[in-house]
């Protein structure tokens, strides 16, 4: 009994354990790894991915997928930059609103027209990216520096970057919604068995609708942070964000088949992937190895490979006999 128990514990806390080990490794090896500057810059940069991954986590828990988050973030950054001269809050609202619009269309395509999430969000990925390019006239849009819009991404609050605060707050909200509201429990129910959920009388379509809407809104928020952090709305940013988010969610132990998932582990997954890069950069700085930036995606892929195989091994223990060929 102890061995399977140990393995299942490893399955749920493996990502947190790996994260701690990685941080300990960095702490022991590099001088400035646990320094204020490094910590705040890692958090500031990764908060965008954290927001996108949170939305992705909810979508995946319902058994769906949202491939449009990257270009939605790009669209959000362009719209926010265009609206930023009107004031910081209006810029923020416009960016999130643009994200919500994309999320709304995704939700309608998936729940009303019954188009597979994969196809619907793939199409919206193209549409959002095209719209962003049209609005921005194929170039990056400078934000207004007078209206205070840039402080959303660049300033600190109680010594902590504002984007990190935003990310932490949304994760707390996400955690509460998932664990303590009927909609949140419904998300897992829909992902576990959609037909059974319907037969029990739960509003499966409404839950799915909300999840895609939320994912769009969070991607728009990530776009706002992108624009204010880098001082420009960037229509071609966000390429591959959806895959980073999916990787973070998978690393966090959320099953892509839906029905199982954790908000906290997703955050750990985002940090793990983010800090992995940070460690690589420090290692390059040490001079022992010199890996070009191109190695990062190879290592990211390898990492995902290991996690996915481990996950498959762990989950196959619980299920019926796995056939070999």
């Amino acid at each position, binding site marked *: 009994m102890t061995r399977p128990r140990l393995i299942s514990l490893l399955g749920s806390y493996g990502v947190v354990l790996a994260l701690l080990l990685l941080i300990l490794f960095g702490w022991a090896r590099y001088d400035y790894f646990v320094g204020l500057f490094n910590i705040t810059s890692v958090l500031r940069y990764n908060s965008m991915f954290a927001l996108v991954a949170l939305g992705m986590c909810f979508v995946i828990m319902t058994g769906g*997928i949202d491939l449009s988050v990257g270009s939605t973030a790009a669209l959000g950054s362009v719209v926010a930059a265009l609206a930023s001269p009107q004031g910081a809050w209006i810029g923020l609202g416009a960016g999130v609103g643009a994200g919500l619009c994309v999320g709304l269309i995704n939700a309608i*395509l998936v729940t009303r*027209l*019954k*188009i*597979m999430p*994969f*196809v*619907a969000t*793939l*199409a*919206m*990925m*193209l*549409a959002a*990216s*095209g*719209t962003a*390019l*049209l609005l921005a006239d*194929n170039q990056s849009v400078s934000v207004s520096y007078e209206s205070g819009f840039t402080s959303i991404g660049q300033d600190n609050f109680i010594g902590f970057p504002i984007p990190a605060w935003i990310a932490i707050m949304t994760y707390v909200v996400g955690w509460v919604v998932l664990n303590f509201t009927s909609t949140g429990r419904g998300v897992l129910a829909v992902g576990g068995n959609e037909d059974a959920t319907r037969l029990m009388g739960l509003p499966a379509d409404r839950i799915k609708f909300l999840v895609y809407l939320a994912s769009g809104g969070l991607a728009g928020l990530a776009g706002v942070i992108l624009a204010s952090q880098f001082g420009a709305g960037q229509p071609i940013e966000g390429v*591959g964000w959806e*895959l980073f988010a*999916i*990787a973070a969610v*998978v690393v966090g132990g959320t099953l*892509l*088949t839906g029905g199982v998932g954790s908000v906290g582990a997703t955050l750990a997954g985002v940090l793990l992937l983010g800090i992995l890069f940070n460690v690589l950069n420090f290692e390059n700085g040490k001079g022992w190895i010199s890996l*070009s930036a*191109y*190695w*990062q*995606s*190879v*290592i*990211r*892929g*390898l990492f*995902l*490979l290991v996690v*996915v*195989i481990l996950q*498959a*091994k762990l989950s*196959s223990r619980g299920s019926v006999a*796995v*056939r*070999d*060929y």
Partner: protein
Amino acid sequence: MTDTARQQLISRPFDPFDFMARYGTLIALALLILFNFAFTRNFATMQTLNVNLTQVCTIVIVAVGMTLVIATGGIDLSVGSLMAISGALAPMIFLGKIVPIGNVALAVAAAMIIAVGVAGLFGLFNGWLIARFRIQPIVATLILFIAGRGIAQVLTNGNLQTFRVPQFQWIGLGRLFGIPVQVVLMVLLVIAAAWMLKRTVFGRQIIAVGGNERAAELSGIAVSRVKLVVYTISGLCAGIAGLVVIAINSSSDANLVGMGMELDAIAAVAVGGTLLSGGKATIIGTLLGAMTIQLVRYTLLANGVPDAAALVVKAGIIVLAVWIQQQGRRT
């Protein structure tokens, strides 16, 4: 069986959705061509035909492999990255950067075989992950989508490789009986795949696996083997497409070769009428789907609509095609 049901079997009433699901792509293509004859200047020229055919070729070659993968109920996101790997490897070999080879013909042959073979091996790796570990195709191929382009960039150190080797570039620039070589290649691949899917046992097994995997397994089909082969074919197709792209460009840029190709290929398959959930596939449909998307883009660009707007239109077409297909299936 009730009487009404029997009657329906004998004479099915005309169902517009079913009709559109069957012939919609063909009609759309015909309408597009007519529209262009009427409104686009210089449309009815050999040059227009050539431009469109050469641009659609690589998409079709990749989409043929993608059709087979999707027919088994899977997906292959790694095709663009595999194109980059094959496109990065081939020049390294025929330019003699790895091992100097004296004979040009020999070097080019080795480059083609090795580059396409390596792409095929990566495809096999995808299939292995999916068949052996039962990892969902979207995740399994996501790994090489991320890592594959990185591998190509690491191989070339991110540098542009330029070359002028007519023997190699024949597959992108040469002509057979006046027809561009890559068009001949595309037609041959389409015919071979269509024949395999319709007329061979293996083709029927692909459809069976996509229709109902469990039932296919119980009826004695080696499901794992079918998946391994299908993903390998997809990898090989991507490898060939990568060679064609770099041959046309006379250069290979690992950062750009095959970028976004997975989306174009999936779109072509979806618009062509292959069910994305698997179990029904048409290679000719994929060919028509790719041509439709290409022609829509050409029509918009030729009439002064910006490329970004063409993206939005493409998105609309994909959604519409899949929606019509689903309505047709429901009845």
